[in-house]
């Protein structure tokens, strides 16, 4: 199936990496460990990894059903469970290190629906949501102390507004320039770049690097040559060579830009995919050249391993289902320095899985 089975047999025959062998992953079902405090996780909005290879998860406590949070009801329905805080930091072994955040809180607008998180390596974490009124970006310390907010919980301001965001799906921190790149988003149709300290607007663009447009009524989805981004603009990542990768999820494509917004090229995957589209989230293989893009497809429910240079698919893994290593709406990815991949699921998926690579990234 899509070459995944063939790759598995290769793995069995020759576990050591060699040049001819394609990058592939297998599930580590022992990760994470059972949560403490009778906690349970809801849908996984976003994930990222810190400099120590700890995994940060932004999950949605409000996506839990009464059944799942039976111990939090009055009277309790069951011994388990209670919603975990929205932000959870795991170590590589699957233990919870830190957790905080969630609906409520003074002095800021916590997202209606948690979606994006990103660290800046300086002790800060940026959060955004994709709820109908989530027109804001939040900055906290990694201990959960509020620092700063751009925009607010409100009706949409649109893709021309530079003092707010429109339901941001993904955030990337560019250390050299201290800039935040925002995949904006479920409401707006743009990539927006702001200063990470001041939140001052720097620049923005739509598909093909043109000025962003909110077209009403919304054009047909699943159109890989559409002149504008559809909703949601669902990921933004920057490779070591400075190229910016953007998931135009419902158009089944990835567009590639320079940091100034100049369009470079685009890659299209399973262009006939309907539903929620084929390009959900992406990570860069952490070797010297970021040789591969690893792309989550939550409609076809598998992960593509793509040669970054030309967009060709070199391998896939996973399929639809609830067993370990399968996916139900695989939505968010994170990757650590050793190439361990973490995948989070939404809808009723509500889990994070760890996948171990068959080779080490070469630096």
């Amino acid at each position, binding site marked *: *199936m899509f070459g995944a089975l063939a790759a598995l047999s290769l793995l069995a025959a020759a576990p050591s990496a060699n040049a001819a062998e394609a990058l592939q992953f297998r599930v580590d079902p022992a990760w994470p460990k059972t949560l403490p405090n009778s906690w349970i996780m809801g849908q996984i909005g976003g994930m990222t990894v810190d400099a120590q290879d700890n995994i940060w998860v932004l999950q949605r406590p409000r996506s839990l059903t009464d059944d*799942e949070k039976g111990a939090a009801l009055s009277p309790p329905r*069951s*011994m*388990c469970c209670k919603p975990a805080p929205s932000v959870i930091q795991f170590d590589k072994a699957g233990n919870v290190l830190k957790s905080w955040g969630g609906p409520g809180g003074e002095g800021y607008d916590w997202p209606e629906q948690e979606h994006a998180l990103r660290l800046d390596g300086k002790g800060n974490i940026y959060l955004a949501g994709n709820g109908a009124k989530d027109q804001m970006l939040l900055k906290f310390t990694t201990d959960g102390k509020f620092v700063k907010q751009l925009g607010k919980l409100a009706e949409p301001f649109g893709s021309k507004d530079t003092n707010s965001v429109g339901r941001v799906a993904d955030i990337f921190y560019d250390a050299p320039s201290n800039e935040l790149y925002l995949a904006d988003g479920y409401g707006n149709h743009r990539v927006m770049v702001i200063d990470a300290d001041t939140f001052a607007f720097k620049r923005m663009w739509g598909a093909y690097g043109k000025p962003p447009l909110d077209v009403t009524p919304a054009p047909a989805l699943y159109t890989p040559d559409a002149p504008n981004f559809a909703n949601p603009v669902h990921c933004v990542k920057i490779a070591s060579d400075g190229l910016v990768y953007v998931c135009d999820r419902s158009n089944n494509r990835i567009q590639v830009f320079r940091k100034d917004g100049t369009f470079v090229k685009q890659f299209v995957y399973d262009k006939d995919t309907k539903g929620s589209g084929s390009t959900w989230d992406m990570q860069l293989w952490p070797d010297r050249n970021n040789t591969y893009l690893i792309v989550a497809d939550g409609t*076809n429910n598998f992960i593509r391993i793509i040669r970054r240079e030309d967009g060709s698919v070199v391998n896939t893994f996973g399929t639809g289902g609830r067993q370990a290593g399968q996916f139900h709406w695989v939505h968010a990815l994170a990757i650590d320095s050793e190439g361990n991949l973490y995948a989070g699921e939404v809808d009723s998926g*509500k889990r994070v*899985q760890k996948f171990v690579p068959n080779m080490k990234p070469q630096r």
Partner: protein
Amino acid sequence: MTIRKMLVAAVLASVTVVAGAQAIAAEGPPTFKVDASWPKQLPNNWVIGQIGGMTVDAQDHIWVFQRPRSLNDADKGATLTPKRSRCCAPAPSVMEFDAEGNLVQAWGGPGTHPDWPVSEHGIQLDSKGQVWLTGNSDKDAQLLQFSRDGKFMRQFGKVTPVTNSMDTKQLGSVASIAIDQAANEIFLADGYSNHRVIVLDANNLTYKRMWGAYGKQPTDMKMKNYEPEAPQFTNPVHCVKIANDGLVYVCDRTNDRIQVFQKNGTFVKQFAIRPETRGTGSSYDLAFWPDRNQTYLIIADGADNEALIVRRDDGKEVGFFGHYGRQAGQFHNIHQVVTDSKGNVYTGEVDTGMRIQKFVPSAPPVR
């Protein structure tokens, strides 16, 4: 919560015993760990829905009765017009797996028989390898018999609105089936609509006897849930299992209890299972630990989402495994539990759980 702490302590203690001295492990209850590699990837782009029923045959093959119609459009995107996604297509309702997780065969499903259950639930094989099936919708008044490879043989009742617990011509949304091969009798946990155990003659599929809670005549009087002392079964009467010593175990799920009978319906005793449980109740299903005396019951608790290990002679909870959640080894609405002859435990989940899992024991059962 104190109960939980005690249980955790008990389980940890038994883990230490197992690690420290394998030889005396048999004296304590077994512990289990998930084998996340079971089952293997299904062929034909298939995906499974909710797990209505499960059973194990004489070859230690695992039979799964799953619900293709519980899959949503995203799950079965490859079968939509236009096609939504590469994956997946609903698997047939009846699936036979071997202990290594290979799919041996699969058959049946909506439309394959005029009285196919509206909602798949009960499955049991008899000693000839014939497969008995029931459903739990309010139109599933039937019991169907198929050959091992899916050829229709006979039926009792049909798809028609269910009636009441005094009706001996049809059933009321049967959840579970047990077969007494020596007497050639079929015991039915009846069910999601009726409030009884009903016994049929397997030779001619005719009514033999029935009973309600405490072995009394069944009634359909309205009752509150979560009452382990209730005078009648509530809905659903969710499992019926026969031990080697002839005792019949019945899950009165939403009353958080298991009642024990002789085969003639005489009440013997009952166990309350975590009686503080609300929601859908604690006693979903049970399987016998396959040692000489069937020392333990392994109970699927789909509200707490743990598998409870309960001593069969006095109903005392001596361990548990699993936890609520979607990771491997956790459960979302654990609904079915079965054991094979080696003590492997297989579980199935409903609602959005939609998976089957295998758990391996710390030590084999002693015969």
